[in-house]
């Protein structure tokens, strides 16, 4: 978990420096979910990831250097700089990712069918957000895996925000009940506590390995970095004076334009926007919600933790320095 956090913090820095030109979705805040599940996987198990695949990949053992080089578009990156962070592919780890929301559902189903034929007792795990659960292909995957009793663990990371929309406004019913209606065990839990995640996943994974079919875990978590780095909502929350100056002019002009909806409806729209910003603000960690701090508190051997973390810090620092050197050389060459 610590390695994942540290790695992604380095990615944020590199993105801020402009060495990653496009989008970057981090998994900061999701580490307990990723670690609680991925650490229980063995060779031959498959991972179907979404656009936030960095953290599970690091925890699964993908070389951080190759991953960082990939994000920087380097030819020595994991996928030769062709895929980027939303398209992490590692054949040796059976990891496949997609930037298309919901695509990890069918991907895990296919991995599980292959496991049934070729890799007895091996399983497939699908990671996705709660926004993806309104995507047809994911619903189809739940049904399909259930009727075939496939060894799949569906993991829904619920941050309450789907891109920049509050999920509650576009999602009907309870997701756990939705999953249960496909005749599979489903559980909602605190995704900031790695111990809780580990225990629930342990049971679900054992079921999958023994042929009892798929399970569904709904793990609640925070999305501290917004949908992606530079998330406009988060920018407004973090720097209201600067960001709002840009937005309020056109917004005010539009809201008071002559023709349009009734005053009541316009007020409701503005309230909705305020609520969206309020929801975004709540996503910043307060100490108790950081999965790393929660884990630290649970461990009694504090000195041991400090020494492990120091070792990871050193390793990560050396790795980043080497990658930046390689990037520089590549650009000069």
């Amino acid at each position: 978990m610590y390695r994942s956090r540290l790695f992604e913090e380095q990615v944020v820095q590199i993105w801020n420096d402009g060495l990653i030109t496009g989008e970057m979705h981090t998994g900061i805040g999701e580490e307990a979910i990723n670690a609680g599940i991925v650490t229980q996987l063995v060779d031959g198990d498959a991972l179907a990831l979404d656009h936030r695949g960095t953290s599970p990949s690091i925890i699964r053992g993908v070389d951080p250097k190759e991953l960082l080089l990939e994000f920087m578009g380097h030819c020595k990156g994991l996928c030769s700089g062709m895929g980027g962070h939303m398209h992490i592919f590692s054949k040796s780890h059976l990891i496949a990712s997609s930037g298309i929301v919901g695509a990890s559902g069918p991907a895990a189903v296919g991995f599980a069918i292959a496991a049934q034929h070729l890799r007895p007792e091996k399983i497939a795990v699908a990671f996705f957000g709660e926004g993806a659960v309104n995507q047809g292909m994911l619903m189809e995957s739940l049904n399909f895996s259930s009727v075939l009793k496939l060894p799949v663990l569906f993991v829904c990371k619920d941050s309450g925000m789907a891109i920049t929309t509050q999920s509650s406004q576009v999602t009907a019913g309870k997701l756990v009940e939705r999953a249960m209606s496909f005749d599979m065990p489903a559980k909602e839990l605190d995704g900031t506590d790695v111990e809780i995640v580990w225990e629930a996943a342990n049971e679900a994974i054992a079921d999958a390995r023994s042929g009892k079919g798929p399970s569904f875990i709904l793990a609640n978590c925070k999305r501290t970095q917004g949908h992606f780095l530079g998330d406009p909502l988060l920018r407004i929350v973090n720097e209201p004076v600067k960001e709002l100056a840009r937005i309020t002019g056109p917004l005010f002009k539009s809201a008071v334009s002559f023709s349009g909806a009734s005053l009541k409806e316009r007020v409701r729209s503005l309230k909705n926007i305020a609520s969206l910003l309020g929801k975004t603000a709540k996503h910043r960690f307060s100490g108790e919600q950081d999965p790393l701090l929660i884990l630290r508190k649970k461990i009694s051997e504090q000195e041991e933790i400090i020494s492990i973390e120091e070792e990871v810090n050193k390793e990560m620092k050396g790795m980043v320095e080497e990658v930046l050197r390689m990037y520089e050389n590549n650009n000069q060459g």
Partner: protein
Amino acid sequence: MRTLTFAEAIEDAIAQAMSEDPNIIILGEDVRMLRVNLFSRFGEKRVINTPISESAFLGAGVTAAMAGLRPIVEIMLIDFIGVAIDALLNHAAKTEFFSGNKWKVPMVVRAACGGGYGDGGQHEQALWGWLAHIPGINIVVPSNPSDAGGLMLTAIEHDSPVIFLEHKLLADYWRDYLGSGGRDNLDYNVPPAGEKGEVPDKWLSIPLGSASMIREGTDITIASIGVGVHRALEAAQHLESKDISAEVIDLRSVAPLDTTTVLNSISKTGHLLVVDEDYKHYGLTGELAAIALENLLRLKFGRVSIDQTIPYSHSEEMKIIPGTKQIVASSLKLLKD
């Protein structure tokens, strides 16, 4: 006249249309944030936030249009149309034909397209050739603010489905949303004339399928669309320094395609270079060559387009997305051979 950005022009044209016609609604993901100005003015009944369920809300857009509304359905990035292609391919495009031309589908599909900011092959495609392959679908791709607003109005007023593609390099909010994210240390080589420009005080629609002749010349015709138009214009200036006179046509619409303007130009120059940010094979470039041959024109033909998946690496993608250098080189080759 007034000066607006590409994105402001689109929004302004939609606001004009929505204030005149209460049957226009917007359906799409994140529209409360992305279209916050329209949302605050027209309210939640007309600016409808959808779940991430493209196949449902695009399919719903088709019948909402059949039943009297004029929906603008937003598919955030055109790459995501893959999830919902059935609604276009088998429904939006077929209803008019199946009903014996008695039932129309006045729906606009609005989506961002194009690359050049480092987002990779699943988020930067053009796909207009692939979509134009389907009979019954119209596709417009503006290259500047004035055309963007005018063509949006055209799309809204048209009684058949129109796909409106806005290039992410031209629309500042997309560039910020998916690219820079508030950073000011990046340069995406944005064509200034595409990003901001003069627009009419009141929007008028532009006839569907009318290309725009933006530079006259006598030696070679360069036809393009979207950002490619600006790269072609820049190339034409380079060519002028080599005493080559290039004519540049902004096609503006992929379907219907303004063949008359292109054919007239080829008749004059005898050389056609098509600059297309979409895939090379089975697309716009080949279509223009076929049309020229069908019309018995004698010409030399060349194309600058993309024949592979777009790399994530920004430096690698810039090698394959049609740029000024490739256009100059291909023009010189065409004229020399």
